[in-house]
C-alpha cells in the first residue's frame, strides 16, 4: 500500500477509538476480556486449580465431568480442569515472549532495512521474504526438530517464524512513510537522518504495531499448540493444551470426549481473544473501509 494517508487515517482513527463504532468496540472489549481472563488464570493458577495438574490418580481413569472434576479426568486420572488452568501459563509465557522477541527484532531490522536501503535492504528482504514464503508451521517444525525439546527452543522457533512478518510490515511502512511528502518536507527544512527516523518516520509507523502484534499472538497460540500436538517442543512435565488434546484422541471411539475437548477449547478461546482484539483494533484504526 503506497499510501500517504495511512498515518492520517490512524490519527483520526485513534481519536474516535473512545466514541463510536459499536461492533468494533465490542470486538475489542470482548477480545480484551478473554485475554485478561486467561492472564488472571495463569497468574492465579496455584490458587484456583483444585489439584496438582501432574498428580496422577487424583480420580479414577477417565472420569466423566462431575462436581468433583468439572472437566473430568484423563487417562492417568489427572484432573483436567487443573491441567487446563496450569496450561494457560506455558501458552502465555511462550507466545508473549516470542512475540516480544520477534517484534523487537523485526521492527529494528525492518526500520534499518527500510531506512538504509541499498544492498543491505536487498539481502535482508530476500532472506526474510523466503522465510515468509514457508508455511509458518513447517518452519516451526523444522526449527523445533533442530533445536530439540524445551521451552527456550520453542520460543526461539516461534520467534524466527514471526520475525519476517514484523520485518516486512515495518519495512513496507518505512518505505511508504519515507516516500511521503512530509518526510521530503522535513528533509527540505534540513532535518538529518536521526531526526527523520525518530520524529517523522517512527511515530508514523508505530501505530500499526499493536494490530499485527495481536493478530500474530493469535497465530502463535495456534502454532505452539500445533507443535505440541505433533509431539514437538515442550517437556512432558509441563501441562500443555496441545499435547493434552493429542492424548484426548486415545479413547475417542469409546465416546470419551472430555480429555480432548476442554484443552482444545482453551486454545480456540485464547486465539479468539487475540484475534477479536486485533481485528477490532484494525477496523477502528483503518476506517477507510468501514466509514462509508
Amino acid at each position: 500500500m503506497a499510501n500517504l494517508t495511512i498515518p492520517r487515517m490512524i490519527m483520526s482513527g485513534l481519536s474516535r477509538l473512545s466514541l463510536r463504532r459499536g461492533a468494533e468496540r465490542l470486538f475489542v472489549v470482548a477480545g480484551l476480556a478473554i485475554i485478561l481472563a486467561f492472564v488472571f488464570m495463569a497468574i492465579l493458577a496455584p490458587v484456583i486449580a483444585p489439584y496438582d495438574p501432574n498428580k496422577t490418580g487424583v480420580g479414577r481413569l477417565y472420569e466423566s465431568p462431575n462436581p468433583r472434576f468439572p472437566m473430568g479426568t484423563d487417562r492417568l486420572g489427572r484432573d483436567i480442569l487443573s491441567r487446563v488452568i496450569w496450561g494457560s501459563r506455558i501458552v502465555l509465557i511462550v507466545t508473549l515472549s516470542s512475540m516480544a522477541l520477534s517484534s523487537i527484532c523485526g521492527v529494528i531490522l525492518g526500520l534499518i532495512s527500510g531506512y538504509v536501503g541499498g544492498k543491505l535492504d536487498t539481502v535482508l528482504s530476500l532472506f526474510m521474504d523466503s522465510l515468509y514464503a514457508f508455511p509458518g508451521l513447517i518452519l516451526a517444525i523444522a526449527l523445533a526438530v533442530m533445536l530439540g525439546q524445551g521451552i527456550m527452543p520453542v520460543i526461539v522457533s516461534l520467534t524466527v517464524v514471526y520475525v519476517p512478518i514484523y520485518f516486512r510490515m515495518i519495512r513496507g511502512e518505512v518505505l511508504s512513510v519515507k516516500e511521503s511528502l512530509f518526510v521530503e518536507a522535513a528533509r527540505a527544512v534540513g532535518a538529518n537522518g536521526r531526526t527523520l527516523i525518530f520524529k517523522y518516520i517512527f511515530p508514523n509507523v508505530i501505530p500499526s504495531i499493536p494490530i499485527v502484534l495481536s493478530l500474530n499472538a493469535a497465530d502463535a497460540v495456534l502454532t505452539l499448540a500445533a507443535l505440541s500436538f505433533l509431539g514437538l517442543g515442550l517437556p512432558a512435565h509441563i501441562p500443555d493444551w496441545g499435547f493434552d488434546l493429542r492424548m484426548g484422541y486415545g479413547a475417542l471411539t469409546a465416546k470419551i470426549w472430555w480429555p480432548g475437548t476442554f484443552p482444545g477449547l482453551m486454545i480456540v478461546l485464547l486465539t479468539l481473544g487475540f484475534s477479536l482484539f486485533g481485528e477490532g483494533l484494525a477496523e477502528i484504526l483503518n476506517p477507510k473501509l468501514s466509514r462509508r
Partner: protein
Amino acid sequence: MTSLRVYIIRRILLSIPMMLILLSVVFVVLRVAGDPVSAILGGHAPLEEIERIRRQLGLDKPLYIQYIDYLSSLIRLDLGRSMIWGQRPVLTEILEHFPATLELSISAFTFSVLLGVFTGVLSARRHNRLTDRIIRLYGIITYSIFIPWFGLILQLIFGVYLGWLPISGRSDPGMAPQTITGLYVLDSILTMNLPSLIDSIRHLILPTITLGIYLSGIYTRLTRTHMIEVLQSDFIRAARARGLSERTVIYKHALKNAFIPILTMMGLQFALLLAGAVLTETTFSWPGMGYFLYERISYRDFTTIQGTIVFIAALIVLISLIVDIIYVYIDPRIRY
C-alpha cells in the same frame, strides 16, 4: 502476443533464482542454525555414534562443501535416503504420499474458496448491516479455529455419536481403487468403481470440512474487503450509470476485479494450506505428506524431514509460478 510469451518465459526463468534462494534458506535453518546430529541423537550419545552419523550425512566436511554437495544432489533430484528401516529414497517416499495430500488440498481449497467468496460477496453487498457483522465474526472465528480440535469435534459428532462418516484414513480396508493417479476419487471414476467412489468421498468429507472452513475465513475477509473497495470505485458507479443490471455489475465487473488480489492471496495462502494439511492429516490419520512428516518427526529421521521441506519449497515456487501465469491471463495490465 509475443510480449505475453516473453513475460511467461521470463517468469519461468525467475523461478530458478527463487528456488535457489529458498533452498539456501533451508540449508541455513537446518545446517547452520541447528545441529542435525544432536537433533537425531537427542544430545547424549557415544562419540563414535556421533562420528558415524556425521560421516554418513557429510557433516564432517567444511560448510561450503556441504552446501555444494547439498545443491548438486538436489539438482540430480536426489533428496537422500531415509535414516530408518529400509533406507528408501526420500523422494520415492514423498511421492508415494503426495497424491493423498494433493487430493485433500484440492478438495479443501475448492470448498474454502467457494464458501469464502460467496460469504464475502454477501457481506460486502450488505455492508455494515447485520449479515455483514455476522459474516465478519465468522471470519474472525475461523481464523481462531485449531484444526485438531475442530476435527475432534466433527469426529465426535459425525463419527462417534451419529456414526455417519468415517473418522480416519482414505478408505475402508479393501475399498481403495486401483491406483492410476493416486487421487482416490479420480481413480474410482476412471475405473468406474462406484463403491470405492462413495467410500473415498465419505472419507474425504470431514477432513475437507475441517481444513476448508479453517481456510475459508481468509477468503471471506479478503473477498469482503476487496469487494467493498471495488464496489466504491468509479467504474462500478459508471457501470450502474450505464444502466447495467445489478447482477452484471456485481459478478461481471466487481467480482472479477476483486478477484485479482484474492488470487495473489491464494498463492501466498498456499503455504497456509500446506500447514493446515499437516494438522488435518495428522488429525484424521490421512496418509499424506503431512502425516508422513509427523510419523518421521517422532523417529527423528533427519533426511526425510529435510527432504520434505525441500519438496515443499519446490511446491511453493511452482505455485507462485502458476499463480503469476494465471494472473497474466486475467489482468491485461501486466502484459505491457
